Protein backbone atom coordinates (compact mmCIF):
# COMPACT_ATOMS: atom_id res chain seq x y z
CA UNK A 1 0.00 0.00 0.00
CA UNK A 2 1.26 3.42 -0.89
CA UNK A 3 0.08 6.80 0.39
CA UNK A 4 -1.52 8.98 -2.26
CA UNK A 5 -3.79 11.95 -2.74
CA UNK A 6 -7.31 11.48 -3.99
CA UNK A 7 -8.57 14.48 -5.88
CA UNK A 8 -12.29 14.75 -6.62
CA UNK A 9 -13.59 17.39 -8.99
CA UNK A 10 -17.23 18.14 -9.73
CA UNK A 11 -17.69 20.44 -12.67
CA UNK A 12 -20.22 21.20 -15.38
CA UNK A 13 -20.15 18.53 -18.10
CA UNK A 14 -19.44 21.15 -20.76
CA UNK A 15 -16.23 22.01 -18.97
CA UNK A 16 -15.11 18.42 -18.49
CA UNK A 17 -13.21 18.77 -21.75
CA UNK A 18 -11.12 21.47 -20.15
CA UNK A 19 -10.33 19.34 -17.13
CA UNK A 20 -9.21 16.52 -19.42
CA UNK A 21 -7.06 18.98 -21.34
CA UNK A 22 -5.51 20.25 -18.13
CA UNK A 23 -4.72 16.70 -16.95
CA UNK A 24 -3.19 15.88 -20.29
CA UNK A 25 -1.05 19.01 -20.35
CA UNK A 26 0.17 18.35 -16.81
CA UNK A 27 0.90 14.77 -17.75
CA UNK A 28 -1.48 13.18 -15.23
CA UNK A 29 -1.99 9.78 -16.80
CA UNK A 30 -4.40 8.05 -14.43
CA UNK A 31 -7.90 9.35 -13.81
CA UNK A 32 -11.54 8.30 -13.74
CA UNK A 33 -14.71 10.20 -14.45
CA UNK A 34 -18.41 9.77 -15.10
CA UNK A 35 -21.24 11.89 -16.46
CA UNK A 36 -24.89 12.19 -15.58
CA UNK A 37 -24.09 13.81 -12.25
CA UNK A 38 -26.60 16.23 -10.74
CA UNK A 39 -26.23 18.67 -7.94
CA UNK A 40 -26.54 22.13 -6.54
CA UNK A 41 -23.99 24.81 -5.80
CA UNK A 42 -23.31 28.51 -6.15
CA UNK A 43 -24.38 28.43 -9.80
CA UNK A 44 -27.80 26.96 -9.05
CA UNK A 45 -29.27 23.59 -9.70
CA UNK A 46 -27.89 21.10 -12.20
CA UNK A 47 -30.81 18.74 -12.67
CA UNK A 48 -29.48 16.66 -15.55
CA UNK A 49 -32.44 17.50 -17.75
CA UNK A 50 -32.53 19.05 -21.15
CA UNK A 51 -31.30 18.39 -24.65
CA UNK A 52 -27.96 20.07 -24.23
CA UNK A 53 -25.47 19.30 -21.51
CA UNK A 54 -25.91 22.67 -19.86
CA UNK A 55 -27.40 21.34 -16.64
CA UNK A 56 -25.21 18.32 -16.04
CA UNK A 57 -22.06 17.73 -14.06
CA UNK A 58 -19.12 15.39 -14.46
CA UNK A 59 -17.38 13.77 -11.51
CA UNK A 60 -13.62 13.24 -11.65
CA UNK A 61 -11.58 11.04 -9.33
CA UNK A 62 -7.82 11.28 -9.62
CA UNK A 63 -5.44 9.29 -7.46
CA UNK A 64 -2.04 10.93 -7.65
CA UNK A 65 1.09 11.72 -5.72
CA UNK A 66 1.45 14.80 -3.58
CA UNK A 67 3.84 16.13 -6.21
CA UNK A 68 1.41 15.57 -9.05
CA UNK A 69 -1.33 17.34 -7.15
CA UNK A 70 0.95 20.30 -6.54
CA UNK A 71 1.43 20.46 -10.30
CA UNK A 72 -2.27 20.82 -11.12
CA UNK A 73 -3.44 22.67 -8.03
CA UNK A 74 -3.15 26.25 -9.24
CA UNK A 75 -4.35 25.56 -12.78
CA UNK A 76 -7.35 23.78 -11.35
CA UNK A 77 -8.11 26.62 -8.99
CA UNK A 78 -8.06 29.05 -11.89
CA UNK A 79 -10.39 26.91 -13.95
CA UNK A 80 -12.85 26.46 -11.09
CA UNK A 81 -12.73 30.17 -10.32
CA UNK A 82 -13.77 30.93 -13.87
CA UNK A 83 -16.38 28.27 -14.59
CA UNK A 84 -17.48 27.02 -11.16
CA UNK A 85 -17.35 23.58 -9.62
CA UNK A 86 -15.69 22.14 -6.56
CA UNK A 87 -12.54 20.19 -5.77
CA UNK A 88 -11.98 18.01 -2.72
CA UNK A 89 -8.68 16.49 -1.70
CA UNK A 90 -8.14 13.62 0.73
CA UNK A 91 -5.63 10.92 1.62
CA UNK A 92 -5.93 7.38 0.34
CA UNK A 93 -3.79 4.33 0.31
CA UNK A 94 -3.21 2.73 -3.04
CA UNK A 95 -3.30 -1.05 -3.18
CA UNK A 96 -0.14 -1.78 -5.16
CA UNK A 97 -0.39 -4.50 -7.77
Amino acid at each position, binding site marked *: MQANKKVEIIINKLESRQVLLLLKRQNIRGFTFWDGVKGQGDRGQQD*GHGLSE*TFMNTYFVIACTEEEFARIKEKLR*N*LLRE*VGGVCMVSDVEWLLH
Partner: protein
Amino acid sequence: MHVDVLLNNLLNPTILFFFLGLLVVVIQSDLSIPQPISRFLSYYLLLSIGLKGGAELAHSGLTPAIYQVLGIAVLMSILVPLYSFFILKRRLNIFDSAAVAATYGSISAVTFITAINFLHDNNVEYGGYMVAAMALMEAPAIIIGLLLVNAYERRQPTEEDSDSEAYSLRAVVREAATNGSVVLIMGSFLIGLVSTPASVEALQPFTQDIFKGMLAFFLLDMGILAGRRLNAMRTAGWFVISFAILVPLVNAAIIIALAVLFQLNKGDALLLTVLCASASYIAVPAAMRISVPRANAGLYVPMALAITFPFNIIVGIPLYFYLLNLLMP
Protein backbone atom coordinates in the same frame (compact mmCIF):
# COMPACT_ATOMS: atom_id res chain seq x y z
CA MET B 1 -60.96 31.86 -39.21
CA HIS B 2 -58.50 33.23 -36.61
CA VAL B 3 -59.95 31.23 -33.75
CA ASP B 4 -60.36 28.19 -35.96
CA VAL B 5 -56.68 27.93 -36.77
CA LEU B 6 -55.70 28.40 -33.15
CA LEU B 7 -58.26 25.89 -31.92
CA ASN B 8 -57.31 23.36 -34.54
CA ASN B 9 -53.75 23.68 -33.40
CA LEU B 10 -54.82 23.15 -29.81
CA LEU B 11 -56.79 20.02 -30.64
CA ASN B 12 -53.85 18.47 -32.42
CA PRO B 13 -52.46 15.53 -30.46
CA THR B 14 -48.95 16.78 -31.08
CA ILE B 15 -49.64 19.99 -29.17
CA LEU B 16 -51.80 18.21 -26.63
CA PHE B 17 -48.89 15.97 -25.74
CA PHE B 18 -46.91 19.10 -25.01
CA PHE B 19 -49.64 20.13 -22.58
CA LEU B 20 -49.58 16.67 -21.07
CA GLY B 21 -45.88 17.17 -20.44
CA LEU B 22 -46.57 20.45 -18.65
CA LEU B 23 -49.26 18.72 -16.61
CA VAL B 24 -46.80 16.00 -15.61
CA VAL B 25 -44.70 18.66 -13.93
CA VAL B 26 -47.64 20.46 -12.36
CA ILE B 27 -48.96 17.32 -10.68
CA GLN B 28 -45.40 16.22 -9.84
CA SER B 29 -45.77 12.89 -11.59
CA ASP B 30 -42.66 10.73 -11.80
CA LEU B 31 -43.11 10.36 -15.56
CA SER B 32 -39.86 11.34 -17.19
CA ILE B 33 -38.38 10.50 -20.56
CA PRO B 34 -34.83 9.20 -20.08
CA GLN B 35 -32.23 11.55 -21.50
CA PRO B 36 -30.94 9.09 -24.15
CA ILE B 37 -34.48 8.84 -25.50
CA SER B 38 -34.83 12.64 -25.68
CA ARG B 39 -31.60 12.72 -27.62
CA PHE B 40 -32.72 9.89 -29.90
CA LEU B 41 -36.02 11.60 -30.67
CA SER B 42 -34.44 14.97 -31.34
CA TYR B 43 -31.75 13.42 -33.56
CA TYR B 44 -34.44 11.47 -35.41
CA LEU B 45 -36.40 14.66 -36.09
CA LEU B 46 -33.34 16.56 -37.29
CA LEU B 47 -32.24 13.70 -39.52
CA SER B 48 -35.70 13.31 -41.06
CA ILE B 49 -36.24 17.01 -41.68
CA GLY B 50 -32.73 17.47 -43.04
CA LEU B 51 -33.03 14.55 -45.41
CA LYS B 52 -36.39 15.69 -46.67
CA GLY B 53 -35.18 19.25 -47.18
CA GLY B 54 -32.15 18.10 -49.14
CA ALA B 55 -34.16 15.76 -51.33
CA GLU B 56 -36.65 18.54 -52.07
CA LEU B 57 -33.93 21.00 -52.96
CA ALA B 58 -32.37 18.38 -55.27
CA HIS B 59 -35.75 18.19 -56.93
CA SER B 60 -36.48 21.93 -57.19
CA GLY B 61 -32.96 23.25 -57.80
CA LEU B 62 -31.51 26.60 -56.78
CA THR B 63 -33.39 29.76 -57.75
CA PRO B 64 -32.70 33.46 -57.10
CA ALA B 65 -35.65 33.50 -54.70
CA ILE B 66 -33.76 31.06 -52.53
CA TYR B 67 -30.83 33.42 -52.10
CA GLN B 68 -33.28 36.10 -51.09
CA VAL B 69 -34.74 33.97 -48.32
CA LEU B 70 -31.31 32.89 -47.11
CA GLY B 71 -30.16 36.49 -47.16
CA ILE B 72 -33.05 37.68 -45.03
CA ALA B 73 -32.44 34.79 -42.65
CA VAL B 74 -28.79 35.62 -42.05
CA LEU B 75 -29.43 39.34 -41.83
CA MET B 76 -32.06 38.86 -39.15
CA SER B 77 -29.85 36.54 -37.14
CA ILE B 78 -27.31 39.39 -36.99
CA LEU B 79 -29.73 42.21 -36.30
CA VAL B 80 -31.90 40.54 -33.68
CA PRO B 81 -29.12 39.92 -31.14
CA LEU B 82 -27.81 43.46 -31.67
CA TYR B 83 -31.04 45.26 -30.94
CA SER B 84 -31.98 42.78 -28.23
CA PHE B 85 -28.70 43.42 -26.45
CA PHE B 86 -29.33 47.11 -26.12
CA ILE B 87 -32.81 46.54 -24.75
CA LEU B 88 -31.55 43.94 -22.31
CA LYS B 89 -28.58 45.97 -21.14
CA ARG B 90 -30.93 48.40 -19.43
CA ARG B 91 -31.91 45.78 -16.88
CA LEU B 92 -29.41 42.93 -16.99
CA ASN B 93 -25.65 42.79 -16.67
CA ILE B 94 -23.44 42.57 -19.77
CA PHE B 95 -22.99 38.80 -19.57
CA ASP B 96 -26.66 37.98 -19.25
CA SER B 97 -27.60 40.57 -21.85
CA ALA B 98 -25.24 39.07 -24.40
CA ALA B 99 -26.37 35.53 -23.66
CA VAL B 100 -30.07 36.37 -23.89
CA ALA B 101 -29.42 38.34 -27.07
CA ALA B 102 -27.66 35.36 -28.63
CA THR B 103 -30.51 33.11 -27.48
CA TYR B 104 -33.12 35.17 -29.32
CA GLY B 105 -30.97 35.80 -32.37
CA SER B 106 -30.40 32.09 -32.82
CA ILE B 107 -33.17 29.59 -33.53
CA SER B 108 -34.96 26.58 -32.08
CA ALA B 109 -34.94 23.53 -34.34
CA VAL B 110 -37.87 21.97 -32.50
CA THR B 111 -40.06 25.01 -33.07
CA PHE B 112 -39.06 24.90 -36.73
CA ILE B 113 -39.97 21.22 -36.97
CA THR B 114 -43.29 21.84 -35.25
CA ALA B 115 -44.01 24.57 -37.80
CA ILE B 116 -43.19 22.19 -40.65
CA ASN B 117 -45.63 19.73 -39.15
CA PHE B 118 -48.20 22.52 -38.95
CA LEU B 119 -47.70 23.35 -42.64
CA HIS B 120 -48.07 19.69 -43.46
CA ASP B 121 -51.35 19.50 -41.56
CA ASN B 122 -52.59 22.54 -43.46
CA ASN B 123 -51.34 21.29 -46.85
CA VAL B 124 -49.07 24.27 -47.43
CA GLU B 125 -45.87 23.79 -49.46
CA TYR B 126 -42.48 25.08 -48.39
CA GLY B 127 -39.00 24.97 -49.87
CA GLY B 128 -36.47 22.34 -48.82
CA TYR B 129 -33.82 25.05 -48.62
CA MET B 130 -35.52 26.37 -45.48
CA VAL B 131 -33.50 23.73 -43.68
CA ALA B 132 -30.39 25.49 -44.87
CA ALA B 133 -31.85 28.80 -43.72
CA MET B 134 -32.33 27.27 -40.29
CA ALA B 135 -28.77 26.01 -40.13
CA LEU B 136 -27.40 29.35 -41.30
CA MET B 137 -29.26 31.17 -38.53
CA GLU B 138 -27.79 29.12 -35.72
CA ALA B 139 -24.29 30.52 -35.49
CA PRO B 140 -24.22 34.27 -36.26
CA ALA B 141 -26.09 35.27 -33.12
CA ILE B 142 -23.67 33.28 -30.99
CA ILE B 143 -20.75 35.13 -32.52
CA ILE B 144 -22.45 38.49 -32.11
CA GLY B 145 -23.14 37.66 -28.48
CA LEU B 146 -19.51 36.94 -27.87
CA LEU B 147 -18.31 40.03 -29.69
CA LEU B 148 -20.63 42.13 -27.56
CA VAL B 149 -19.22 40.72 -24.36
CA ASN B 150 -15.70 41.30 -25.56
CA ALA B 151 -16.50 44.85 -26.60
CA TYR B 152 -18.10 45.79 -23.31
CA GLU B 153 -16.07 43.77 -20.88
CA ARG B 154 -12.51 43.78 -22.09
CA ARG B 155 -10.75 41.23 -19.96
CA GLN B 156 -7.04 41.04 -19.31
CA PRO B 157 -5.70 37.82 -20.79
CA THR B 158 -3.72 36.13 -18.03
CA GLU B 159 -1.11 33.47 -17.97
CA GLU B 160 -3.62 30.79 -16.90
CA ASP B 161 -5.60 31.28 -20.08
CA SER B 162 -3.40 28.80 -21.80
CA ASP B 163 -5.44 26.08 -20.13
CA SER B 164 -8.77 27.63 -20.89
CA GLU B 165 -10.57 27.91 -24.19
CA ALA B 166 -12.93 30.51 -22.85
CA TYR B 167 -13.49 33.89 -24.48
CA SER B 168 -11.68 32.91 -27.66
CA LEU B 169 -13.67 33.79 -30.75
CA ARG B 170 -12.21 30.86 -32.62
CA ALA B 171 -13.39 28.43 -29.96
CA VAL B 172 -16.87 29.88 -30.05
CA VAL B 173 -17.23 29.83 -33.81
CA ARG B 174 -16.06 26.22 -33.76
CA GLU B 175 -18.50 25.40 -30.97
CA ALA B 176 -21.36 27.00 -32.88
CA ALA B 177 -20.53 25.40 -36.21
CA THR B 178 -19.89 21.94 -34.83
CA ASN B 179 -22.90 21.85 -32.57
CA GLY B 180 -24.52 18.42 -32.89
CA SER B 181 -27.92 19.67 -34.06
CA VAL B 182 -26.42 21.80 -36.80
CA VAL B 183 -24.11 19.06 -38.00
CA LEU B 184 -26.88 16.48 -38.04
CA ILE B 185 -29.49 18.55 -39.87
CA MET B 186 -26.98 19.97 -42.36
CA GLY B 187 -25.35 16.57 -42.87
CA SER B 188 -28.71 14.96 -43.51
CA PHE B 189 -29.61 17.85 -45.79
CA LEU B 190 -26.50 17.25 -47.89
CA ILE B 191 -27.14 13.52 -47.91
CA GLY B 192 -30.67 14.17 -49.13
CA LEU B 193 -29.23 16.49 -51.77
CA VAL B 194 -26.75 14.03 -53.29
CA SER B 195 -28.52 10.69 -52.81
CA THR B 196 -30.57 9.15 -55.57
CA PRO B 197 -34.28 9.93 -55.12
CA ALA B 198 -35.15 6.22 -54.99
CA SER B 199 -32.76 5.59 -52.14
CA VAL B 200 -34.15 8.50 -50.13
CA GLU B 201 -37.64 7.23 -50.78
CA ALA B 202 -36.68 3.83 -49.41
CA LEU B 203 -36.10 5.54 -46.04
CA GLN B 204 -39.53 7.15 -45.95
CA PRO B 205 -41.31 4.63 -43.72
CA PHE B 206 -38.78 5.63 -41.10
CA THR B 207 -38.22 9.31 -41.85
CA GLN B 208 -41.78 10.27 -42.79
CA ASP B 209 -44.47 7.75 -41.88
CA ILE B 210 -43.69 7.59 -38.18
CA PHE B 211 -42.57 11.24 -38.05
CA LYS B 212 -45.73 12.70 -36.53
CA GLY B 213 -45.79 10.05 -33.84
CA MET B 214 -42.18 10.59 -32.92
CA LEU B 215 -42.81 14.34 -32.83
CA ALA B 216 -45.81 13.86 -30.53
CA PHE B 217 -43.72 11.71 -28.20
CA PHE B 218 -40.92 14.25 -28.30
CA LEU B 219 -43.25 17.13 -27.51
CA LEU B 220 -44.42 15.24 -24.45
CA ASP B 221 -40.81 15.30 -23.37
CA MET B 222 -40.45 18.97 -24.31
CA GLY B 223 -43.50 19.72 -22.19
CA ILE B 224 -41.86 18.08 -19.21
CA LEU B 225 -38.62 19.97 -19.83
CA ALA B 226 -40.42 23.26 -20.29
CA GLY B 227 -42.47 22.66 -17.17
CA ARG B 228 -39.36 21.99 -15.11
CA ARG B 229 -37.65 25.11 -16.36
CA LEU B 230 -40.81 27.12 -15.77
CA ASN B 231 -40.25 26.66 -12.05
CA ALA B 232 -37.00 28.58 -12.48
CA MET B 233 -38.96 31.52 -13.96
CA ARG B 234 -41.04 32.05 -10.85
CA THR B 235 -38.48 34.40 -9.41
CA ALA B 236 -37.82 36.19 -12.72
CA GLY B 237 -39.22 39.67 -12.99
CA TRP B 238 -41.82 40.92 -15.44
CA PHE B 239 -39.03 42.32 -17.60
CA VAL B 240 -37.62 39.01 -18.78
CA ILE B 241 -41.04 37.43 -19.09
CA SER B 242 -42.37 40.19 -21.30
CA PHE B 243 -39.13 40.18 -23.27
CA ALA B 244 -39.61 36.46 -23.92
CA ILE B 245 -43.00 37.07 -25.48
CA LEU B 246 -42.71 40.55 -27.00
CA VAL B 247 -39.40 40.19 -28.81
CA PRO B 248 -40.59 37.10 -30.70
CA LEU B 249 -43.71 39.00 -31.68
CA VAL B 250 -41.68 41.95 -32.90
CA ASN B 251 -39.34 39.66 -34.84
CA ALA B 252 -42.31 37.89 -36.35
CA ALA B 253 -43.86 41.20 -37.35
CA ILE B 254 -40.67 42.27 -39.11
CA ILE B 255 -40.47 39.04 -41.08
CA ILE B 256 -44.14 39.12 -41.99
CA ALA B 257 -43.63 42.62 -43.32
CA LEU B 258 -40.57 41.55 -45.30
CA ALA B 259 -42.43 38.51 -46.60
CA VAL B 260 -45.20 40.71 -47.94
CA LEU B 261 -42.66 43.12 -49.38
CA PHE B 262 -40.59 40.45 -51.13
CA GLN B 263 -43.62 38.33 -52.04
CA LEU B 264 -42.22 35.22 -50.41
CA ASN B 265 -43.92 31.88 -50.82
CA LYS B 266 -46.38 31.47 -47.93
CA GLY B 267 -44.86 28.30 -46.49
CA ASP B 268 -41.35 29.75 -46.56
CA ALA B 269 -42.65 32.93 -45.00
CA LEU B 270 -44.17 31.07 -42.08
CA LEU B 271 -41.01 29.08 -41.47
CA LEU B 272 -38.83 32.18 -41.65
CA THR B 273 -41.15 33.95 -39.24
CA VAL B 274 -41.01 31.06 -36.84
CA LEU B 275 -37.23 30.89 -37.05
CA CYS B 276 -36.85 34.56 -36.20
CA ALA B 277 -39.45 34.38 -33.46
CA SER B 278 -37.89 31.32 -31.88
CA ALA B 279 -35.08 31.25 -29.35
CA SER B 280 -32.34 28.68 -28.93
CA TYR B 281 -32.13 26.39 -25.91
CA ILE B 282 -29.72 23.79 -27.26
CA ALA B 283 -26.90 25.31 -29.29
CA VAL B 284 -26.69 28.68 -27.58
CA PRO B 285 -26.54 27.42 -23.98
CA ALA B 286 -23.83 24.95 -24.96
CA ALA B 287 -21.80 27.72 -26.58
CA MET B 288 -22.47 30.31 -23.85
CA ARG B 289 -21.54 28.05 -20.95
CA ILE B 290 -18.13 27.83 -22.54
CA SER B 291 -17.68 31.29 -23.97
CA VAL B 292 -19.50 33.40 -21.38
CA PRO B 293 -19.51 31.21 -18.25
CA ARG B 294 -20.44 34.18 -16.11
CA ALA B 295 -23.84 34.45 -17.81
CA ASN B 296 -26.61 32.75 -15.88
CA ALA B 297 -27.89 29.67 -17.73
CA GLY B 298 -30.72 29.58 -15.20
CA LEU B 299 -32.01 32.74 -16.85
CA TYR B 300 -31.62 32.41 -20.59
CA VAL B 301 -32.53 28.73 -20.93
CA PRO B 302 -35.87 29.00 -19.10
CA MET B 303 -36.73 32.16 -21.07
CA ALA B 304 -36.28 30.29 -24.35
CA LEU B 305 -37.57 26.90 -23.32
CA ALA B 306 -40.29 27.64 -20.81
CA ILE B 307 -41.80 30.81 -22.25
CA THR B 308 -40.89 31.48 -25.86
CA PHE B 309 -41.05 27.86 -27.03
CA PRO B 310 -44.54 27.11 -25.65
CA PHE B 311 -45.75 30.54 -26.76
CA ASN B 312 -44.60 29.85 -30.30
CA ILE B 313 -45.96 26.36 -30.71
CA ILE B 314 -49.27 27.06 -29.02
CA VAL B 315 -50.12 30.61 -30.04
CA GLY B 316 -47.36 31.85 -32.30
CA ILE B 317 -47.44 29.45 -35.22
CA PRO B 318 -51.20 29.65 -35.85
CA LEU B 319 -51.14 33.41 -35.24
CA TYR B 320 -48.31 34.06 -37.69
CA PHE B 321 -50.06 31.83 -40.19
CA TYR B 322 -53.29 33.73 -39.73
CA LEU B 323 -51.53 37.05 -40.30
CA LEU B 324 -49.71 35.76 -43.37
CA ASN B 325 -52.99 34.51 -44.79
CA LEU B 326 -54.54 37.89 -44.11
CA LEU B 327 -51.77 39.89 -45.73
CA MET B 328 -50.74 37.60 -48.58
CA PRO B 329 -53.72 36.80 -50.72
